[in-house]
């Protein structure tokens, strides 16, 4: 019985030790907050520093185009693949990377946090021929200052199984209107990310004009709550929330879900596997009548980059016509480089992905980071933290 007394004493010692360490940390941790607006942009690209470390989406940094880059510039590329925009922000904050392929729901956070520097686009010769509607956008240009080089873009499509979903839907109401969605209860596929709230906002913008939604990423409390309530209602009808493309492909192929929001990548994968799949047809501009959300990725340079010259060379390389065509085909997205379309292996690739169709992209609301300060001067928009917490509440 002697042993009975000891564990309790040991436990108290451990707890006391933990408290001591915590207090110590609390004491020294309170002094380092920096949110400066970023440093100076480069004025001249010098000799490469011999290496380059990147954070990217899977499929953006592949040997097919990094090997020739290394031979040409002597910059040895190491890449860290991130699974989500949140993870990209987290990795960039470590200051150990030179650059990142940020989507619009990460870029403003990186700029606000002082994690990235402005980019001098005159040092990136291939920038000139990038599709003009990708330049000076709210997700890559802040207060008129360029913060990155556009890489490629895609829209979030409405996809359905033609055997189960009849007639062919023309509107997001098939998954968002509570009555219509109930028809496919348990068979709806939705994107598992706070940014999906914007999809509901796009729908409400068209169907509830009294809310006065302009930009689906700039929502005041009333507009935001309406979108959140819509998704809470949708939840009981959702069969599966997806975050990795592979998970959604298997769910559609196995019949676990029949209709939902997707990327071009999954759509063409499933079509290629001869699955009975359709997405909004060309006659409707390939989008449901409300339009859709989408993503446009931007290469940004870290404010703590140790190899800025290599990073500038990389940003030029990745949007050079041949390489941009390779990446776009590998990943399944529309290239940012207008000259890339001549270099695609598949002749009608650019047409398939609407790369040269500005009318298509006009109705796509590219991901942005929701911030309180949303241009109306009142700072009353819901910020990303609100979106995140609401997303937890939506999923219940």
């Amino acid at each position, binding site marked *: 019985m002697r042993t009975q007394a000891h564990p309790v004493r040991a436990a108290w010692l451990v707890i006391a030790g933990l408290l001591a360490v915590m207090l110590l940390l609390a004491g020294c941790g309170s002094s380092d907050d920096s*949110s400066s607006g970023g440093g100076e942009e480069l004025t001249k690209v010098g000799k490469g520093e011999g290496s380059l470390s990147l954070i990217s989406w899977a499929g953006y940094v592949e040997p097919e185009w990094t090997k020739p880059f290394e031979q040409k510039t002597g910059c040895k590329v190491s890449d860290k693949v991130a699974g989500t925009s949140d*993870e990209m922000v987290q990795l960039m904050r470590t200051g150990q990377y030179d650059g990142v392929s940020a989507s619009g729901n990460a870029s403003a*956070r990186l700029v*606000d*946090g002082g994690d990235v520097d402005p980019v001098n686009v005159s040092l990136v010769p291939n920038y000139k021929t990038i599709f003009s509607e990708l330049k000076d956008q709210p997700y890559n240009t802040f207060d008129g200052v360029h913060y990155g080089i556009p890489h490629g873009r895609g829209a979030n499509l409405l996809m359905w199984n033609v055997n189960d979903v009849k007639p062919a839907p023309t509107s997001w109401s098939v998954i968002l209107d509570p009555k219509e969605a109930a028809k496919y209860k348990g068979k709806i596929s939705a994107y598992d990310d706070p940014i999906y709230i914007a999809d509901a906002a796009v729908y409400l913008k068209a169907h509830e004009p009294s809310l006065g939604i302009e930009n689906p990423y700039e929502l005041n409390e009333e507009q935001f709550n309406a979108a959140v309530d819509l998704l809470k209602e949708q939840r009981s009808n959702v069969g599966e929330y997806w975050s990795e493309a592979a998970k959604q492909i298997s769910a559609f192929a196995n019949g676990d879900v029949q209709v939902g929001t997707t990327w071009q990548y999954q759509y063409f994968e499933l079509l290629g596997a001869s699955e009975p799949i359709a997405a909004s047809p060309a006659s409707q501009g390939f989008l449901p009548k409300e339009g859709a959300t989408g993503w446009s990725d931007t290469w940004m340079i870290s404010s703590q980059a140790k190899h800025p010259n290599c990073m500038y060379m990389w940003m030029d390389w990745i949007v050079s016509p041949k390489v941009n065509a390779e990446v776009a085909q590998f990943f399944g997205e529309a290239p940012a480089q207008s000259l890339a379309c001549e270099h695609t292996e598949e002749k009608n690739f650019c047409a398939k992905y609407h790369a040269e169709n500005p009318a298509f992209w006009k109705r796509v609301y590219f991901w942005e980071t929701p911030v309180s300060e949303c241009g109306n001067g009142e700072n009353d928009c819901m910020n990303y933290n609100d979106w995140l917490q609401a997303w937890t*509440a939506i999923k219940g």
Partner: protein
Amino acid sequence: MASEAAVERRSAGHRLADLFHGRPRLQVGALLAGPVGWLVIGYLGSLAVLLIAAFWTVSPLSGELTRSLSLENFETLVNEPVYRDVIWRTVRIAALVTITDAILAFPIAFYMAKIASRRGKAILVVAILLPLWSSYLVKVYAWRTLLSSGGIINWALEPFGLHGPGFGITAVWLVMSYLWLPYMILPIYAGLERIPDSLISASEDLGASPFTTFRRVILPLVFPAVVAGSIFTFSLTLGDFITPKLVSNSQFIGTVVFNNFVTNLPLASALAMVPIVVMIAYLLVARRLGAFEHI
């Protein structure tokens, strides 16, 4: 020269030996300094960092950490009903998985310990350990295939006009019960091994029915082992986030921590404290029940 150096070295070694000679406390201290140092700095230290973060907040504009103490995150956990739902759901499923595993594990462990031949015993131990050799992810994905609409479970049930559970909380319960079963079987097996066969014979000789023998003799003796096994099944279910993500849409403590970890580390840390508190309470109860008497 060389021999001089050797003498020097030997004398240094001797001096070290002299230092430790007759000082058992110093001997033990030197031996344990490395492992204990690692435990305190690497293990408890990182835990402390995580826990202190629970009192920080995140600046809404840039998403950077504000390192001043506040109870805001705990207020959120208490005031937002969604977190209470998530915590309650997680604890419930952990309890359910534990009970399921205990019921499944007992007959297997009993057969291994008391009935099987030496060879049969060896084969069973290997069979139970075998799944632990394959990757966790492979096993969960295998269950995803089994449970999907066009999967084997639905195919087998179809002739009877039935449907499988599909993805959802039931699927989480099934997969977790499958995953952690070996952690329950092995402690119960070890506990049953320790019960002398003579006790069971004596009970029978005294006229007890098999059920009475089980209830009055075996169960009280093996109960601490069941509690020890339940610590594994309970705590592993409490913290898991991959299985719920792959076979359900429901949120558990682990998935919410995972989703908030990057953008709102303080809230994630505060939520991560919940399983720690639950487990401390659980361990205190387990100690009462005698789970640690043989450790």
